[in-house]
């Protein structure tokens, strides 16, 4: 092997170590027993594998006032699944209209929708809280589902619009001549070939809603309703919670999106690139 190739591999390996270091510490620490955990030994491999930390992080410890993540993990599940499905369907419908049933002014509507995915949400938080309080959605999982469905519209519309743009319009035109209407064409032609679009959109939405922190923090002040990211931050923010429990909690929180990344990374990538508008 030539020297330049060796250097090339060394650089790649160096960066691999950098990206994997936090994972190493996460795994090692969360699998150590309480007796073995100390900061001096944070880089050491566990002598004995123990799942105590996970159990404590998951179940909590009422005698010490330690809240586990189990309830919040389930909150995140209950909130992510409907919000993902709703925003994906809205996106699919919008993408279908914007590409196959173009109307006057759609070229102005689309960028206006799109801008919504870039705004700092701080600029809408105050009215959002006011409106949610008035409609009794504040502090509820239903409220969070609603918020994520609405603010998911821009990105899901973008992904589906790009996807449907690759489907030849002649298919739709031919169906129109045959007398098929808006709903019929969607049901018979568009929806059956939409699965890749749904995969990309839903994986993207699942990951970003799961990972959301700001909406969870502001819209759900009650610990029983909070999503898992907010609960993890609370867990890690209290000084009496041991370091290994924090790490186990971090791993629990990271697990669902990581599993998606590992098994469905291809679709995740496409969502990422769509988000950068490089595929517009």
């Amino acid at each position: 092997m030539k020297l330049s190739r060796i250097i090339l591999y060394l650089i790649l390996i160096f960066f691999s170590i950098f990206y994997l270091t936090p994972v190493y510490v996460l795994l090692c620490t969360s699998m150590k027993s309480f007796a073995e955990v100390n900061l001096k030994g944070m880089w050491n491999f566990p002598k004995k594998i123990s799942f105590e930390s996970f159990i404590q992080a998951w179940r909590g410890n009422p005698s010490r006032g330690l809240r586990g993540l189990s309830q919040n993990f389930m909150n995140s599940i209950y909130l992510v699944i409907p919000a993902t499905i709703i925003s994906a369907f809205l996106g699919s419908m919008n993408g279908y209209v914007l590409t196959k049933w173009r109307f006057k002014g759609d070229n102005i509507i689309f960028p206006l929708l799109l801008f919504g995915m870039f705004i700092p949400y701080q600029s809408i938080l105050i009215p959002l809280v006011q409106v949610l309080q008035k409609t009794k959605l504040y502090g509820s999982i239903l409220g969070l589902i609603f918020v994520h469905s609405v603010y998911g519209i821009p990105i899901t519309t973008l992904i589906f619009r790009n996807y449907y743009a690759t489907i030849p319009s002649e298919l739709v035109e031919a169906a129109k001549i045959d007398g098929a209407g808006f709903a019929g064409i969607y049901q018979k032609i568009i929806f059956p070939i939409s699965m890749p679009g749904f995969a990309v959109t839903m994986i993207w939405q699942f990951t970003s809603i799961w990972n959301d922190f700001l909406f969870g923090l502001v819209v759900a002040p009650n610990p029983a309703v909070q999503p898992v990211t907010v609960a993890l931050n609370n867990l890690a923010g209290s000084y009496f919670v041991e370091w290994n429990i924090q790490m186990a909690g971090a791993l629990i929180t990271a697990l669902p999106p990581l599993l998606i990344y590992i098994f469905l990374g291809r679709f995740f990538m496409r969502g990422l690139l769509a988000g950068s508008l490089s595929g517009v």
Partner: protein
Amino acid sequence: MKKINREKIIPILFILPSIILVFIFVYGFIGWTGIVSLVNWRDIFPDFSFVGFKNYKELFQDYRFQVSFKNTLIFTALFLISCIIIGLLLAILIDRKIRGENIFRNIYLFPMAISFVVTGVVWRWLLNPGPSLLDPIGINMILDKIGLSFLKSGWYTDPKIGIKAVVIAAFWQMSGYVMAMYLAGIRGIPTELFEAAQVDGANTLEVYRFIILPLLRPITLGAVIILGHISLKIFDLVFAMTGSGIGFSCDVPALYMYDKTFRGNFFSQGASIAMILLISVAILIIPYLRYSLKAEVKR
């Protein structure tokens, strides 16, 4: 005649709910925040007496706002430069027909899938200097072991470093994204271009310098905009990793807005911070949106 009308109206009816929702929840709410920033709402009871730009004037004289704004600029600059240089380097190296390409690519990209909160919690421990530099933990301990002790520092606990330590965590999370963007870009360049250049006698470096890098310019622009707007509004990572830090050395406007509004009930001032955040993001995003959509029409 009637048929044609129906055919035009039905699709609009289906997209209308989304349009209405976005117009209320994005544009209507932004307008409302703008109004709140111009009134005198300073506790839990709304007070809508108009005060003009008083909140903004106060903000620009406010020490914490000045520090947090400066921090954001430093953060954005370092974050962008590091992600783009390393992202491009890794993309070029990965493209050199290496073994285990998939493995490397996945290792570089997986942090993207993780929540900023998780990243913050983990890096808070890794960059924790421990009781003292002589009694190190985390990264400092590793630096001692590999003979790079001079690189040891207090990281985010040192007010002189502050937000710059958060850049390391942000870089860890997002640089793989830039790598993926560049890699997609390089792979999109027709191979005939390389072959033609090689026939003309260009060496590898020249091919990169004169063919690949110029063709990657739109990707660099995209990366600058995407990372730039993420870093201007960065919140979760700082919140989970450091908070506002000693002497606000880790503070950012998004965090200040949260503190002012939801911890301090200074709604009008919070709204004015939010509006400044929005304007800084809009300056970056709107031209890019126009550029992207125009480029699309041309194609």
